């Protein structure tokens, strides 16, 4: 299966892109949760400058993408022009416009105003989870992350099934080397959605880092689950390779370990051959 990066490269490399090509790139990046803000910005600007008459109902959707991309790429003047355009179309009191304006303020370092915008939205609808998260995100820039962590935990009390917040909490705990809490958070993600393979891989990485033979075997279980469902997830293959080697070094390896190690090596070689990058592992001992 072609990787998302390769598909995107193919879309981008086309010369003389039509409006449809430019829209395809923007939609592909958005629908696959990829982070290429400057690319989206380029495509949006081209659409608006060369193909605006043909956009019709999509015109303001493209402006919204442009604004979000401009904010992320730090082209704040461009973002402000986009926000003014959205404001003229939908009005200053429109929730979406206020949310975007709040994000703009955040990006500009104007946290007080951003907070006010979010508070206004929450006063109209206190259950707006996206805005609660944005408001919380203001705490992420501080030196002391404890209030941010407390805020995430508080958010989870009212929204126990919110996978995004559990994953974010796990990420923050990981960055602060709090392995046990990070592991708990990622295991919550797994329980809420057993097809979130990245959570299994993260949990396995944490278990490996924590050490102990039991943890290594648990890590191996998580990774085997991922590979059974998708044998081409190379991150899982490499991590499993690492875990099996570590189990081998303990002197307490079971019979399955040697087989798994062999399977890993074969699969990895195949993946690199398929990707035509075998040179990267030519001098690496995968025997």
């Amino acid at each position: 299966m072609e990787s998302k990066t390769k598909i995107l490269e193919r879309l981008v490399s086309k010369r003389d892109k039509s409006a449809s090509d430019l829209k395809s790139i923007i939609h592909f990046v958005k629908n696959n949760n990829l982070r290429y803000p400057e690319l989206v910005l380029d495509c949006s600007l081209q659409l608006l400058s060369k193909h605006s008459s043909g956009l019709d109902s999509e015109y303001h959707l493209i402006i919204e993408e442009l604004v979000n991309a401009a904010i992320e790429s730090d082209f704040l003047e461009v973002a402000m022009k986009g926000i003014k355009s959205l404001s003229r179309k939908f009005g200053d009191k429109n929730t979406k416009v206020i949310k975007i304006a709040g994000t703009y303020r955040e990006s500009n370092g104007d946290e007080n105003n951003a907070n006010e915008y979010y508070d206004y939205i929450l006063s109209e609808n206190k259950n707006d989870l996206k805005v609660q998260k944005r408001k919380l995100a203001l705490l992420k820039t501080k030196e002391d992350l404890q209030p941010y962590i407390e805020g995430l935990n508080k958010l989870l009390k009212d929204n126990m099934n919110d996978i995004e917040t559990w994953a974010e909490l796990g990420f923050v705990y990981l960055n602060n080397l709090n392995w046990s809490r990070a592991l708990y958070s990622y295991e919550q993600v797994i329980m809420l959605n057993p097809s979130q393979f990245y959570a299994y891989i993260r949990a396995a990485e944490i278990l490996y880092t924590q050490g102990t033979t039991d943890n290594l075997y648990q890590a191996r279980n998580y990774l085997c689950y991922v590979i059974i469902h998708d044998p081409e997830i190379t991150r899982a293959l490499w991590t499993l390779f690492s875990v099996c080697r570590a189990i081998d070094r303990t002197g307490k390896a079971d019979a399955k370990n040697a087989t798994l190690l062999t399977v890993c090596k074969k699969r990895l070689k195949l993946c690199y051959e398929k990707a035509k990058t075998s040179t990267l592992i030519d001098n690496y001992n995968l025997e």
Partner: protein
Amino acid sequence: MKVSVEERVYKKAAAHVLRYTTEDVIGVLVGRRGPGTVTLVDAYPLAHGPVMAPLLEIAFELIDANKPEGTTIVGLYEAVVKTNRSPTLTPSGVKVLEVIADRAGADAIALLIDQNTANDEEVITFHARQLSQKEHRLSEVPESGLSPAFAMSSLEKVIRERQYRSIVDFDAHFEDVSLDFRNPTLS
């Protein structure tokens, strides 16, 4: 210790920072050691997020298998996303640096990268630190051969031609092994 830095190190490290402006990034430095000197020869972007032990091990091994002849892993670079936090190594960065120092049996070098906006222009600055292998204590490098003018001239093309868009770190490589972590186009 005196540290000197070759152009490709600036290019790759800065490209990594520019590609992931909303995340902390970390990378590995390889170089040559001489009496009282370290020359940083190449950089391998490692991750844009937390670095975990199993993949760090594999990344080190892959770097060892692919690095320029006569070089060893001598340190890391790290950039913390623009926040109100004071520029310093993250806890994870310190751990990785300690691993590098222990692995090499010698002091390790850290390049801290700041990305700021001054007069509406992006300014990337590099600061050098060293971690003593015996005491695991971080200090300033007595004679850092970092040249701000050289760094900025190296980065001009990277920024102007947006070469940073194609930078590959090990996070990206482990997701898609067709992506080359050596970043030959930036060498």
